[in-house]
């Protein structure tokens, strides 16, 4: 039994614990204990992983566990991690931990709320540790469905519409993914023998290029929907705007990363030739997405919409980097996922806390909040600066790695795309500073806000944990970057061996 199974067991036990609780306080504390354990387990995992690597264990995947659970279709519960998934697990546990504290104020049905939230989290954890495509898909669905309930029941505004829209679009995406996965499954044993969903085994098989070309769009668009690929991103602003705080955090922070991770781990990794041939189409979409999301954010008035568009822009950057097909850019893509995950979770946490105090999310109705809630305001400025890529925070590291990596492609098309994408840093500065200027600085516009109180202890825990995350990565990125780079080895080999086949 692998250490990794704990990442599924802890949430399940926490859920059972929550169902046995008698009152609100017990529910919250059970959730806190469970998710703190999860965070500690994740930190231990990072250290164990680094220790293994330092001890010279260069196996592609560590901590493997493989159980057959459905023989007819040869489906396994096959888990294991490399540097990339360890990083993603670290991100997820941090965001979930902060999310629990950010939803401390939940009044309606807390038991059900925390149950769904933790179920969602366990889906995400399962997704990141699975190496069997079917199990992966299963966990993916497990993550998407509680989202519907969380938004539909605890959301605000047009929550039914948003929940429905979000779920339907994601389900549409997962239908495409399922098709793609089945396509891979039926091509997994070209020389005869049992078909398999095993990701590692499929990666060693050469799938005919025509088949790849057919399957690649299914998988890339399918995961791309979740990763807010340009024309399929519209679920994101509405969904975020209606979702309760912790759900927005988890959703933008972690769930959207499932898309990028899937594109990387499944679409590009397993179908490298098709990725080389069709990548340019998605590269154009991703480039549009980066600029489009950023410019879209400039005009918005609702805090959550601003951040949702900003997420579209940042997540498109992840896809952009993955499609650059070189190690540096891929590394940047993973770092961007982590960085954006923490950063945007921080943003949504803060927006939730501000909304909880002012009861509006329209920036024009607020102003001068720095004076009444200095802690939250400073945290918001920090989040903003991190988002616009200031050195010392994780966003800078990720963006610069992406830009340098992308620029290593010497042809005009990739270069021009890189420069266009790089110009988004200016637009990001514009919308971030606009919000900071209107929301936090200046005079207090509404007298009722003079009475507002600053962050409570649980708000502070949530915010400080996230800020700690972005600064640690921002100041000392080397360990993370090296850990990810090692995990990128197999995919880079596949891409390199695929490249000559184009000529």
């Amino acid at each position: 039994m692998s250490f990794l199974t704990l990442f599924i067991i802890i949430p399940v036990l926490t859920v059972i614990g929550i169902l046995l609780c008698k009152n609100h306080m017990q529910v919250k504390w059970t959730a806190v204990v469970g998710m703190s354990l999860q965070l500690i387990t994740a930190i231990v995992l990072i250290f164990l992983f680094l220790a293994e690597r330092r001890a010279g264990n260069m196996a592609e995947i560590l901590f493997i566990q493989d159980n057959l659970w459905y023989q007819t279709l040869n489906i396994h519960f096959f888990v294991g991690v490399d540097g990339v998934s360890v990083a993603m697990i670290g991100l997820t546990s941090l965001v979930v931990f902060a999310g629990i504290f950010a939803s401390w104020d939940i009044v309606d049905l807390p038991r059900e709320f925390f149950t769904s939230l933790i179920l969602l989290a366990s889906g995400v954890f399962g997704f990141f540790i699975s190496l069997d495509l079917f199990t992966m898909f299963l966990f993916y669905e497990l993550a998407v469905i509680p989202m519907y309930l969380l938004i539909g029941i605890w959301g605000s505004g047009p929550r039914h519409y948003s929940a429905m829209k979000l779920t339907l679009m994601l389900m549409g995406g997962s239908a495409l993914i399922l098709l793609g996965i089945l396509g891979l499954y039926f091509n997994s044993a070209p020389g005869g023998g049992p078909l398999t969903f095993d990701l590692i085994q499929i990666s060693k098989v050469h799938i005919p290029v025509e088949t790849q070309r057919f399957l690649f769009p299914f998988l890339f668009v399918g995961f791309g929907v979740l990763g807010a690929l340009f024309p399929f991103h519209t679920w994101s602003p509405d969904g975020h705007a209606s979702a309760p705080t912790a759900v927005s955090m988890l959703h933008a922070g972690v769930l959207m990363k499932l898309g990028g991770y899937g594109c990387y781990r499944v679409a590009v990794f397993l179908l490298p030739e098709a990725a080389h041939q069709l990548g340019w189409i998605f590269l154009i979409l991703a480039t549009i997405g980066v600029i489009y999301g950023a410019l879209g954010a400039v005009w918005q008035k609702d805090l959550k919409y601003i951040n949702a568009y900003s997420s579209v822009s940042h997540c498109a950057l992840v896809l952009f980097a993955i499609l650059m097909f070189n190690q540096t850019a891929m590394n940047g893509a993973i770092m961007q996922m982590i960085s954006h995950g923490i950063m945007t979770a921080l943003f949504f946490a803060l927006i939730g806390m501000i909304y909880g105090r002012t009861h509006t999310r329209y920036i024009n109705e607020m102003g001068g909040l720095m004076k009444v809630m200095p802690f939250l305001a400073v945290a918001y400025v920090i989040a903003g600066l991190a988002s616009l890529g200031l050195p010392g925070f994780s966003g800078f590291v990720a963006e610069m790695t992406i830009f340098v990596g992308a620029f290593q492609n010497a042809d005009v098309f990739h270069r021009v795309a890189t420069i266009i994408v790089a110009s988004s840093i200016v637009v990001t500065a514009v919308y971030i500073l606009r919000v900071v200027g209107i929301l936090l600085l200046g005079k207090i516009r509404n007298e009722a806000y003079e009475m507002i109180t600053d962050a409570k202890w649980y708000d502070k825990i949530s915010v400080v944990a996230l800020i700690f995350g972005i600064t640690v990565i921002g100041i000392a990125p080397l360990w993370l970057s090296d850990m990810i780079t090692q995990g990128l080895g197999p995919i880079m080999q596949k891409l390199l061996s695929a490249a000559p086949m184009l000529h």
Partner: protein
Amino acid sequence: MIDFSYTALILLIPLFLFVLVGLFGNRFKPLVSGVIGTSGLFVIWVLSLFTAYKYFFVLEKATDGSFQKLLAVNTVWLHLTDKLHIDMGVLLDPISVMMLIVITTVSLMVHLYSIGYMHGEKGFQRFFAMLSLFSFSMLGLVVATNIFQMYIFWELVGVSSYLLIGFYYTRDTAVAASKKAFIVTRFADLGFLIGILILSYTTGTFDFITLTGSSSPAFSSGQGVWFLGLSTMTWSMIFIFMGGAGKSAMFPLHIWLPDAMEGPTPVSALIHAATMVVAGVYLVARMFPIYIHETAALDIVAWVGAFTSLFAAVIACTQFDIKRVLAYSTMSQIGYMMLALGVSGYGGHEGLGYMASMFHLFTHAFFKALLFLGAGAIIHAVHSNYMNEMGGLRKYLPITHITFLIACLAIAGIPPFAGFFSKDEILVAAFHHNKVLFAMEYAVAGLTAFYMFRLYYSVFWRKEVHYHHTPHEAPATMTIPLIFLALGSTFTGFIPFTKLVTSDGLPFEIHTEWGIAIPSILIAVVGIAVATVFYRKENNIATRLARSMGGFYTAAYHKFYIDEVYLFITKRIIFNYISRPIAWFDRHIVDGTMNGVSYVTNEASFRIRKFQSGQLQQYAIVFVSGTIFLALLFIYLWTN
């Protein structure tokens, strides 16, 4: 060999101070955080002086007799590609050591001054925390061992500048100014970034020592024509200069600097006069061995510098806000430095312009910081920024008056004050390079003398205006820095820069070219004289002259409407015609398509559900006719 690894402390101390005061400042009494900040700065000032002494006078020279380029500390911060990695470290060479002195000196003076100036302000601790952050970033910038480290600290100084300009965050103008400063420089930084990307791709390194060494890959690679008839390397240098131009407020990226005067005055002195705004000059100087090979890029540097210096000097003559006058004056002087780099050659006497530029940077830091701190003392006394609300202050503020006068003389280029020596070298270098540039700079010298003394007379002479309460001299924490900087402005001109800071690190001999020096003194005297006539006593010569200039004066007064042009482009065009339509497009077209799909699905199911009418007999009809149809079908199929 001397171990310089202690220089890491020069960076770490201010960082520690920032974290300490930033996190726990509110637990301290205001004064305590001020004292902590100042004493920390004092320590690194001493360390810098010590380093400079060791570096220039004790450390043995390289084999060819030049100053070594020394990696005191260097660690890998991030691996990017196989070849490229970002390092963090401390590079010691003549210009970085010189900059260490400039920054720590001015910063120490400003810290000390701020204890008095910011006394009783809300957010005193925050102010000192940010000053420490700025000192850290600026020091990190100048000692950067590679261009990416420089970019990192470049961004950090940008944000400290943003935070400090917006220090009075309840004031809308300050908020707008800080935002503007950040965004404009950010735009320029995009150019810098692109330049770095091109440079690092072509040369395969970020490292300054490799890049600027005699066998730099920058000289061999990227030489082919790439775009618009210029080579890759030229383009990368032009892009990098764009970053420098943004930070150094060169035309047309200068618009943020005058507005940045919304920040507290010590901040203007430190960041927007002495240190951060010369980062662009420093950047070009740092990359100078490459620039010298890319003449097209260097010409751009020269012409942008010259144009800015003239342009800003003209505007400075028309402004009434004393800090804005000084801001335009700063732009003008930085233009001088850029020009000097642009006209310089490499090695020995050829590199006169380079030396002159660094020299001017050094002296300018002293007298411009002094001018700003003096202006701060004036504002502190009369609570106004406008020179028409001042006059006759010389008897109330004697120390400020004397030190301000010294600074004015220094900037106007009157010997023996510091400005004369450095400016003279620049003029000589320009004269030998291009006569048009020389003529422009010559005119600027006259204008500089004029607008500085216009300011000086309007503040300290003329008739006294009615003050709400009697102006009084600033406290000692403010006057001591003034006096110290005044001494600096007087004597730094005698530092033998040709022996210390030169383009190739080798000392060379110069002799004053009196043929250029004397006319430049003369034009400065003329400028002062005109200012004396116009402004010493109340009269309307200036107003009449302004009126006779008509449109030109109005245009200069409105800063040649550059701000309006930008506003038009950003607000009207980008905001209204790009961003807004995109938001609309997203809601209605992209989202509309998605909603359209769901609408079609809905509509289809609405139509189909009519079959489920609830009418038993309808179902029966369907059932019966279906059965009959199937029966007939099967009969047909079987019989055939």
